[in-house]
């Protein structure tokens, strides 16, 4: 039995009177894809925001690689190896696709003032290998997109923007990847392709854990190893898709909503 990648205990987030995460316990294992499901407003995105340091948790802990994430800054959490995509795309639209990927690659680039201003030859070497890497990664998701590396991110379709966002999160080779509804707005066929691409990349990064927020149950069934179900900020069930789907609380939560 391998040690979990992420261990959350009693994780709580309150906004004024509203409890968006309510004493949440959750483990993520290395190399697994964990599906996160639950009705709208059940706290899934908030969970990502707390784990990535966007919001400071009200209580509880989230231990990753020996450190409690609730005490770290967003920057330190990224350096520890957690990256994410956003539910509402947050690319730097006026910048090139390459620039967007390099924002995600921050951890592996040299940001010293002297290096950047005066060692242009060394910078160029770093730049060129980054271009190769960016092109290769992007080509996994879409070959035509990889040829448009130096076009503005605003010039491509919504679906390509989602792909760029996923690549931005992947390029720094994280240990844990958080995907917030990556297939929103895609057709079944596109979703399928996207998931296959994600699986392909994961194959190249052994040990990469992924948490996937997704509403399509057949996608969850197909790609996840385990799932956790949220309702009103609580984890009401966890286990394989089959186990979870058979759970009475889960059925009630979904029936109650629809």
């Amino acid at each position, binding site marked *: 039995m391998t040690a979990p990648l992420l261990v959350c205990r009693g994780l709580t987030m309150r906004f004024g009177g509203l409890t968006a995460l309510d004493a949440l316990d959750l483990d993520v294992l290395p190399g697994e894809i964990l599906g996160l499901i639950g009705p709208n407003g059940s706290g899934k995105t908030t969970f990502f925001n707390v784990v990535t340091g966007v919001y400071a948790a009200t209580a509880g802990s989230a231990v990753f690689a020996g450190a409690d994430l609730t005490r770290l800054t*967003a920057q330190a959490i*990224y350096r520890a190896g957690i990256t994410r995509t956003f539910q509402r795309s947050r690319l730097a639209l006026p910048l090139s696709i390459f620039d967007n990927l390099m924002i995600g690659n921050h951890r592996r680039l040299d940001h010293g003032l002297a290096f950047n201003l005066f060692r*242009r030859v060394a910078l160029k070497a770093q730049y060129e290998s980054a271009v190769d890497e960016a092109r290769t990664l992007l080509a996994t998701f879409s070959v035509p997109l990889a040829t448009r590396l130096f076009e503005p991110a605003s010039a491509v379709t919504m679906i390509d923007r989602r792909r760029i966002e996923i690549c931005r999160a992947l390029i720094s080779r994280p240990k844990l990847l958080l995907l917030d509804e990556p297939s929103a707005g895609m057709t079944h066929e596109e979703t399928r392709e996207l998931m296959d691409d994600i699986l392909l990349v994961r194959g190249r990064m052994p040990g990469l854990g992924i948490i996937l927020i997704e509403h399509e149950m057949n996608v969850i069934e197909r790609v996840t190893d385990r799932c956790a179900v949220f309702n009103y900020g609580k984890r009401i069930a966890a286990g394989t898709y089959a186990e979870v789907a058979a759970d009475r609380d889960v059925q009630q939560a979904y029936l109650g909503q629809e």
Partner: protein
Amino acid sequence: MGALRWGVGSVATVAVYAALFLYAEAQSVVIGLLVGAVVAMVMASRFDVLARVGESFARHERALDRLTFAACIAVAALFHDQHFVLLMLATVLLYFVACIGLNLQFGHTGVVNFAGAAFFGVGAYAAAVLSQHTPVPHLAIIVIAGAVAAVIGSVLIIPVLRTRGHYAAMVTIAFGVLFKTFLEVNDTLGGPQGLKLPGMSVFGIPFNANIALSDDAEISFYMHYVVLALLLAAGAYSLSRRIERSWIGLNLDAVRLDETACATFGIDVARWKIVAYTIGNALCGIAGAVYAMMTGFIAPNNFTFGDSLIMVSIILLGGVGNPRGVMIAAAVVLLLPEKLQMIQEYRFLLYAVLVMAVLLFRPEGLLPRRLRAYFPGGTS
């Protein structure tokens, strides 16, 4: 596309035009030249000339940068015996240096600074005090003045970092007003009357003496300042380009566009704001110090909120984030009222209306910035 001749042609045209404009005395001629420029710009964009020029600059940047530098020297040489023209040229170049600084802050990093003229003034007053009361060499004074502006800026950075958008704007505006009020009531700094400064002297060369060419030909002493300002402008330009075309430039853009997203990718928002703010204010201070020693006299009225707004206007008109646009805008904004007497009185109104029009109809500025090319033209 991207042929060198388009770039060369445009630099030459602008240089000749600038010379004619500076030479023109009669108001009718000046107006004629202005109308000509507007017509030429409209035609140029109609017939795709602007796009080709832009392409050419992107491809042959290095060569064209050098040509631009040479063209500046040529224009200055043409007016080598005219004090006033050289003074104006040096002023434009110094404002360019300051605006490059503000552009790093606002255009790249998104940190607003409505106290540009105040930081320029900090440099000017630092230079005045140092040159009057200490034997510090004048080149060192310029550096110290930049450092003083940066240090004073770093006090302001605390509230600026903790706040966003309008709050940061308020802090810098308050500082600008505070600075001018402080100067006006502080008698040791000359109060409203201001301070006098000696001319510069570098390596034993007195900057305030004309250079005799022959018995009856002289080069105006302002040429010293033009050369110094041109060197500073080239340095600021190159610094700004190097910053833009490196991971630092990328970090600054990322901070401007989305602080939350870039923090989740490890970008230290505070660090890059401090870097941009410090470099920018230092450039303002340096420019102010040279300006003070050049004019030999400074007063609180040179560093008002209105002057800060003029600097912001230069950046917005030129094209936010685009140093070449800033250069052209600095020249137009500063020279126009000097040459066209009838608008001198109306210049604040005119620029305010122009900037409003740009913000409403072309918010990326007249010469918008291009996508980042880390190593343009394939050379480093």
